[in-house]
């Protein structure tokens, strides 16, 4: 790696933090193209298989030992449905409760507004750096780059998020963003990059995980102690009390939530829970579904400012960024129940083989394939391909702690993509003509029987063959036969066999 990342990218001024890869998510190729690189990477396939299999097993174990797990899932579903149904009410209630407790509440319609609000608060504190708790929503708004533009360095403090940031990389998983990296790659990144941005890694560091963790701890310590402002997301906001909740594993979150004077939390509007009691359901569902633990190591709940203890200036930015559009869709809105546990991607056979980057979205895997095209719309090639990035096996539905019918919503979104193309394309696509023809054919038994004449003719033509090998016909024929033989259709269909049998009787 000879590129000087400090000056890389379109901005000529030196980077304050490691530059992420160039290009935007929306500019990424459609899923079927994006997966090629990943599928060829044997190391990645092995890393992913090992990691997802392990975590999948842990989740299954932890879910199975709760005798009322299914009831708990139903409760989670119903509480979140209630939030969606009365979102207007709970948002106002939450704002009032938070304000009463001393939190300044901001409203952001979209990513740009949210980023502007955060940048302004940080600037008003006269700081040129912030520490961050791992947060999906600030990935969604690309806050780090907005801060960088404004001359403020944003430091990720979650270990895996730090690996991603130092590696000039993108997260590939919502819970373990560096799942695509193994320990020797992490060692290389630490050795090469840490010194450029703060305390370097010890030159003789090995790829032993405790040593790597110790290097990260030392590197982050000075940033924790120096930072005046911290930025977080939020797992839940309790509307009744105005309490904000963050669950985490490493304790870096607790550092960010207690050391700096100012704390800004960016939270999606769907993250509300009506009452404090509702946490009982989610604090059981979430850790068991995500890390496969009975409890997560750190749960932080804060209700406004406590004088002389912790941050004295608290802000919450409530973000829409497409969520109200999702809520308006009676089928798609069920995706808003998501609590970002990642169980769906850990169990997904497609994710297991391609990883998170090919999804072109901060939310990869099954949930990303239904949420992202709803939040961003279906105008771009990547968003149009996401609902199709699934075999509809349904494994995700069964593990979702809030019972999101992911495969039904995938199909619903496929319908939306087809409708969108129908409206925006001047000419019908080849696929739409093909399916129109099939639809017509399946309308009547005689029509299907008529079409079967063709398959039988092919069978008679190649009567000695039992299988068809590679076909050099572009499109679906070669897509099937490149790696799979296709059985020859039989000379006699079932309906013909039936007729012949009836005649003999």
């Amino acid at each position, binding site marked *: 790696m000879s590129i000087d990342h400090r000056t890389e990218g379109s901005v000529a001024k030196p980077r304050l933090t490691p530059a992420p890869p160039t290009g935007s998510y929306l500019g990424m190729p459609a899923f079927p193209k994006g997966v090629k690189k990943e599928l060829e990477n044997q190391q990645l396939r092995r890393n992913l298989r090992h990691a997802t299999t392990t975590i999948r097993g842990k989740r299954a174990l932890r879910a199975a030992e709760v005798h009322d797990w299914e009831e708990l899932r139903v409760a989670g579903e119903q509480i979140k449905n209630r939030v969606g149904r009365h979102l207007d009410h709970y948002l106002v209630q939450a704002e009032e409760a938070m304000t009463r407790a001393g939190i300044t509440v901001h409203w952001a319609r979209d990513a740009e507004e949210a980023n502007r609000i955060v940048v302004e608060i940080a600037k008003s504190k006269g700081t040129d750096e912030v520490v961050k708790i791992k947060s999906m929503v600030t990935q969604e708004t690309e806050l780090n780059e907005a801060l960088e533009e404004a001359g403020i360095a944003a430091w990720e403090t979650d270990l895996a998020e730090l690996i991603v940031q130092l590696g000039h990389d993108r997260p590939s998983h919502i819970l373990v963003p560096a799942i695509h990296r193994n320990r020797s790659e992490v060692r290389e990144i630490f050795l090469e990059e840490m010194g450029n941005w703060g305390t370097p890694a010890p030159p003789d560091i090995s790829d032993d995980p405790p040593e790597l963790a110790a290097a990260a701890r030392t590197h982050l310590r000075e940033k924790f102690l120096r930072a005046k402002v911290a930025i977080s997301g939020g797992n839940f906001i309790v509307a009744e009390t105005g309490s904000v909740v963050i669950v985490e594993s490493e304790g870096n979150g607790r550092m960010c939530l207690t050391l700096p004077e100012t704390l800004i939390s960016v939270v999606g509007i769907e993250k509300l829970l009506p009452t404090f009691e509702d946490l009982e359901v989610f604090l059981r569902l979430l850790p068991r579904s995500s890390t496969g633990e009975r409890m997560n190591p750190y749960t932080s709940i804060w209700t406004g400012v406590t004088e002389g203890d912790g941050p004295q200036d608290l802000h919450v930015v409530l973000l829409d960024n497409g969520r109200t559009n999702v809520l308006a869709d009676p089928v798609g809105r069920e995706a808003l129940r998501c609590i970002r546990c990642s169980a769906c991607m850990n169990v997904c056979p497609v994710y297991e083989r391609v990883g998170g980057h090919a999804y072109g979205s901060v939310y990869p895997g099954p949930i990303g394939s239904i949420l992202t095209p709803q939040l961003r719309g279906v105008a771009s090639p990547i968003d149009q391909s996401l609902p*199709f990035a699934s075999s509809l096996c349904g494994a995700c539905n069964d593990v979702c702690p809030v019972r999101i019918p992911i495969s039904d919503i995938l199909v619903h979104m496929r319908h939306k993509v087809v*409708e969108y193309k129908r409206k925006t394309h001047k000419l019908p696509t080849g696929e739409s003509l093909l399916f129109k023809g099939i639809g017509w054919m*399946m309308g*009547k038994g005689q029509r299907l029987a008529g079409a079967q004449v063709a398959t039988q003719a092919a069978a008679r033509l190649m009567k000695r063959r039992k299988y068809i*090998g590679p076909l050099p016909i572009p499109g679906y024929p070669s897509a099937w036969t490149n790696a*799979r033989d296709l059985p020859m259709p039989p000379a006699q269909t*079932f*309906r013909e066999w039936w007729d012949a049998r009836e005649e003999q009787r």
Partner: protein
Amino acid sequence: MKPGDGKTVALFATCINDTMFPTTPQAVVTVLERLGCKVVFPKSQTCCGQMLTNTGYYDEAVPSVRNYVRTFEDYDYIVGPSGSCIGAVRHQHPMLAEHAGDKALKSVSEEVVKRTYDFSEFLVDVLDVTDVGAYFPHRVTFHPTCHSLRVAKVGDRPMQLLRAVKGITILDLPDAEQCCGFGGTFSVKNSEVSVAMATDKARNAVSTGAEYVVAGDNACLMNIGGVLHRGNTGVKPIHLAEILAQTEEAAIA
């Protein structure tokens, strides 16, 4: 007295079996008649419409729903040898009728759906049999298929039926419940991922030492079998119904 005596079954062959794998619905006829059922094959039948629905073509799938309802509404038992097609009928037809804005179609569809059974469900739940008098002296491994498990929700019924087959050796398939990568048009729209999944499934099937990989769905078997055949593995795909249709008498004769 046979378990099927007095029962008339309308066979839903499914379009793919009718066209590509006729020996499977033939086997269903053999087993059901052996158990005493009267089997009819309403010739106006076509397809469950799943391929259209799951590719996003709702409007185009509605004629399949209408045709299914018209074809089968007069029968008490509608039986098909596919967890996926049966699952699609039960799970998607009322939704498609609603999409078409046809309340009458939706209400009839909701009734017809209740009388629609996967072959394994009909045997175990309605006829209350697991031993259908089958004989199959071979080593097999069983792939449960995603839609049989998670849409039609047939549970362990296929396995109950297999265990009762005389002479059979059932070998455990590693990662049995993971998808084979077929997924309808997924297999051609995302063929590379699909093949990666099918290759793992085929490798697991070969690792068992089985002669046959068994499933309740020929679409999945076409996918797994395609990889098995390309790799000259010698492991053959076979539908559950075709195992259940074989008897000791037939084997000796």
